[in-house]
């Protein structure tokens, strides 16, 4: 049933991976720690294996609907008697959705790519770069010119480092030599977040500058804003997850509605409620249901495309 006991080496690798991960997530890791982690991962295949296993573990949890999973896994301890007495009651139903990202098997040289609201797309480019489009996004690509224009929406671009690719936005350019970057174009600015490696930014006004992994910045018509740190390990739209951490519900819903076709409205009274959790974008109806389960609000659907959130009656 069970094979031979794990080797001392495997155990040690697992212990070290666990400690590295805790350090990285604690927010207290510095550049040197990151470099040392990389060295550790590269130094032995068992290290890299343990690290990858840990990532798979995180992913398993990230894929769960947080409210349901929390209620189940953090349930209060019950005596056997109570469990048995209650038996299995009536069952409500909830959709469990898993990310199905649409992978295009194309080798693209030049193209105009577009996604609909709620759609995601992954494309492998002919030079080995990989391009992911978030919801309601459009890009024009011309690989011969090493050039890519973000017309609207958001992309993630991973460049293997053969030669630089330039992303053109309405608010400046992002030159990616080797690394991975997210670029999000809005009405009034463009947000650039570096996930791996480094990029060179050319704002409309002001000098060029570099941005490293773990840093993000907004480019606006007047130039670049302040550089801010962010958590590169946190799952996001590329994994099909919408994360919120003590976020005002209004902000969360504005973000959510960019993934939902149709109308999503809510009462101003709900605007300042707080949301924490990770939600699967594959099924936004379910996200609304989970919100209703954990916050004092009700979901009223006239049709699937016309949804209003109201404060729950008989709640304060």
């Amino acid at each position, binding site marked *: 049933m069970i094979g031979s006991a794990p080797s001392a080496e495997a155990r040690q690798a697992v212990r070290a991976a666990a400690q590295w991960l*805790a350090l990285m997530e*604690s927010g207290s890791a510095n550049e040197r720690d990151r470099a040392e982690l990389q060295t550790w991962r590269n130094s032995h295949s068992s290290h890299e294996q343990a690290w990858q296993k840990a990532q798979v*573990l995180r992913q398993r949890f990230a894929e769960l609907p947080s409210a349901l*999973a929390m209620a189940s*896994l953090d349930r209060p301890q019950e005596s056997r008697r109570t469990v*048995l007495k209650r038996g299995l009651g009536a*069952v409500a139903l909830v959709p*469990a959705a898993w990310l199905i990202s649409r992978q295009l098997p194309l080798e693209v040289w030049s193209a105009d790519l577009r996604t609909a609201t709620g759609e995601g797309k992954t494309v492998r480019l002919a030079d080995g770069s990989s391009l992911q489009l978030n919801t309601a996004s459009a890009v024009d690509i011309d690989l011969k010119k090493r050039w890519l224009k973000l017309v609207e929406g958001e992309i993630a671009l991973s460049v293997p480092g053969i030669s630089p690719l330039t992303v053109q936005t309405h608010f400046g350019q992002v030159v990616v030599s080797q690394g991975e970057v997210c670029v999000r174009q809005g009405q009034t600015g463009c947000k650039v977040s570096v996930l791996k490696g480094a990029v060179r930014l050319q704002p409309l006004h002001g000098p060029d500058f570099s941005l490293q992994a773990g840093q993000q910045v907004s480019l606006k018509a007047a130039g670049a804003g302040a550089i801010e740190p962010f958590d590169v390990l946190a799952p996001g739209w590329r994994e099909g997850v919408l994360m919120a951490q*003590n976020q005002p519900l209004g902000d969360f819903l504005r973000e959510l509605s960019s993934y939902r076709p149709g109308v999503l409205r809510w009462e101003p009274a709900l605007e300042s409620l707080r949301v924490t959790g990770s939600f699967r974008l594959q099924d936004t109806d379910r996200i609304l249901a989970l919100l*209703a389960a954990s916050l004092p609000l009700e979901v009223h659907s006239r049709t699937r495309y016309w949804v209003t959130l109201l404060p729950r009656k008989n709640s304060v």
Partner: protein
Amino acid sequence: MSDAVMPEEQSFNDLYRDHRGWLEGWLRRRMSNGHDAADLSQDTFVRLLASSQRIADLQEPRAYLATVGKRLLTNFYKRRSLEQAYLNALALLPEDCVPSPEQRWILLETLQALDELLDGLPRPVRRAFLWSQLEGLTYQDIAERLSVSERTIKRYMAQAYEHCLLVTL
């Protein structure tokens, strides 16, 4: 393959014949449902078959069966209480979000597997881990919730990761 019964198989058959009724009765006294007791008794023998334990070497077969049975019983209650908590949480959701029963069970199975994975972790470690993984709380937030230092949370998290990764080795 010959039809000859191997000695080990013979021992198992004897054990099953001699003690299955006893084990089922033992379990039935601890459970309210006879079908569950019969299922668990069956499971106990299946575990024994799959284990490396040599049946002929068993000095006290009933003590052994009771030990395995007790462990299965504990797991049974854990699964049942998880299922109950899950169904309660589902019941809070509005009716108009109707999924297929299949998807519901896939999610339940996933939760049960993770529940087993986390089994054995001290309560505060488990909670810290769940808050971090499921709700995305920072170590600082968790430290405040549990009224301990961030260092402690870092230690908890490393402990939880190590525990889960060791199980999957």
